[in-house]
């Protein structure tokens, strides 16, 4: 029970249609500790989503290994240890909120865990009481993303992979979602890998921020966010917070060139 995400020497390249090999990940290494929140920041096309897909076992790396809580991604999949959340809520439109959240527990039934949260509990955790029997088309963008979050948490995942989950939300909704997420994670404590291209968001949420290089040849920079685990809106205007955001931004710019 260490819930760690370990990535060793992972490389991946794509061959484009005209035969040019395009390296997106070059020997990536890192270890994310138990219950740690790590954000990966980087420009579009730098391989953030590819990295998440490799960690979740959806995509095989060309070389290197990934270890999740001591298991390979494939075994973690079969044990249902991985929670996944996308930029698009990706809800099933013909299912109600309740049935959407229940979806992960309905498949791969060989694995059922008595530690699963009840759907009712998840609904109240994400603040959707009264919307159980609504359909996705009846919800606002922020509510849909809350359903998506509850769905990811329904299997009580050891690791939670989030691919720009708030990227398509408006500023106001996104800000409230940040604090809701932190509060939720405080209760569920999975290890989180969060992909974003918003430096402020990364600093606000994370214990550490990894800045990905624009091209695979560059090195990944790590910014430690020494703000303690409890974050508040007051903190967002503090000098230290802004220094950290600037630090992420400058390493972003520095690796970009």
């Amino acid at each position, binding site marked *: 029970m260490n819930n760690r995400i370990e990535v060793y020497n992972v490389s991946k390249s794509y061959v484009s249609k005209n035969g040019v090999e395009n390296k997106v990940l070059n020997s990536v290494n890192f270890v994310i500790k138990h219950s740690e929140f790590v954000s990966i920041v980087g420009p579009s096309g730098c391989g953030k989503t590819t990295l998440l897909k490799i960690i979740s076992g959806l995509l095989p790396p060309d070389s290197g290994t990934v270890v999740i809580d001591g298991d390979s991604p494939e075994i973690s999949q079969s044990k249902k240890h991985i929670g*996944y959340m996308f930029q698009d809520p990706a809800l099933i439109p013909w299912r109600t909120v309740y049935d959407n959240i229940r979806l992960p527990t309905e498949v791969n039934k060989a694995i059922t865990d008595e530690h699963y949260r009840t759907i009712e509990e998840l609904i109240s955790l994400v603040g959707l009481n009264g919307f159980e029997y609504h359909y996705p088309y009846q919800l606002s963008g922020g509510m849909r993303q809350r359903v998506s979050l509850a769905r990811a948490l329904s299997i009580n995942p050891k690791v939670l992979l989030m691919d720009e989950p708030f990227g398509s939300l408006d500023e106001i909704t996104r800000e409230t979602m940040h604090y809701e997420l932190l509060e939720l994670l405080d209760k569920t404590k999975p290890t989180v890998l969060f992909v974003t291209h918003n430096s402020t968001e990364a600093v606000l949420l994370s214990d550490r921020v990894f800045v990905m290089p624009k091209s695979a040849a560059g090195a990944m920079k790590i910014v430690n966010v020494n703000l303690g685990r409890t974050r508040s809106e007051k903190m967002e205007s503090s000098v230290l917070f802004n220094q950290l955001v600037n630090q992420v931004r400058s390493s972003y710019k520095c690796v970009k060139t």
Partner: protein
Amino acid sequence: MREDLINRAKQSLYWIGPPVVVFALVFALWEISVRVSEIEPYLLPPPSRIIIEVVTNISEYCLNTLVTMGEAIGGFILGAAVAIIGATVMYQSRFLERGLLPLAILIKVTPIIAIAPLFVIWFGFGLLPKLLIAAIITFFPVLVNCLAGMRATSSDITDLLKSLNASKFEIMIKASFPNSYPYLLSSFKIAIPLAVIGAVVAEWFSGDRGLGSMIIRANNNLDMPQLFGAVFMLALMGILLTTLVLYIEKKLLFWHDSQKVENDIG
């Protein structure tokens, strides 16, 4: 309660009003031009003659309509069932898709008018050749649409299910197959009138019941009012069946963009 009733009446009028007006105008124009130009009724009867013909022989028309409708619906169900099974098989692998698609296209491009007499020789004068012709004509649009609908499933949803080690079968049942419903219903709208045409064409070559046989008989006797009467009944059947599909679509696809009118607060 009373207001609800009034609203409903308003709603029905909203849908039924425009087509009623259009049809009334077309029929009026038809009636007037036939009478003014004095075209012989054995060439083009006025709508009033056709309506009188249908009303006086209503039981015969209804019986034949039911026969043809039964053949069309039976053939449609058979063809759609085989097409859906075919699509789920082809969905399993690109190899099977590549292998089976040419066969499906072959069935599609074979003119039914050419194989209908052949089917009479093979399967006799009974119900079977009519069902098969209607099924064949239904098959292709349903197959292609069902497959396209399953393939159009959001890759995020399939990725999510894969990350939970869901089986291929689970992914199909939970995501891909329901995702094809809007496509399926669209193909039904195309296939239902085609199945009616199939049944009618099959009747031309065999049997003495159904609207198709009635058309052939009327044609041989130069009985234009009867010929047009049968065509009217076919048109009515087409409207009825298409409306039925539209109704099912509305109930089943309440979640789909195509059915969205209000309720959207997103």
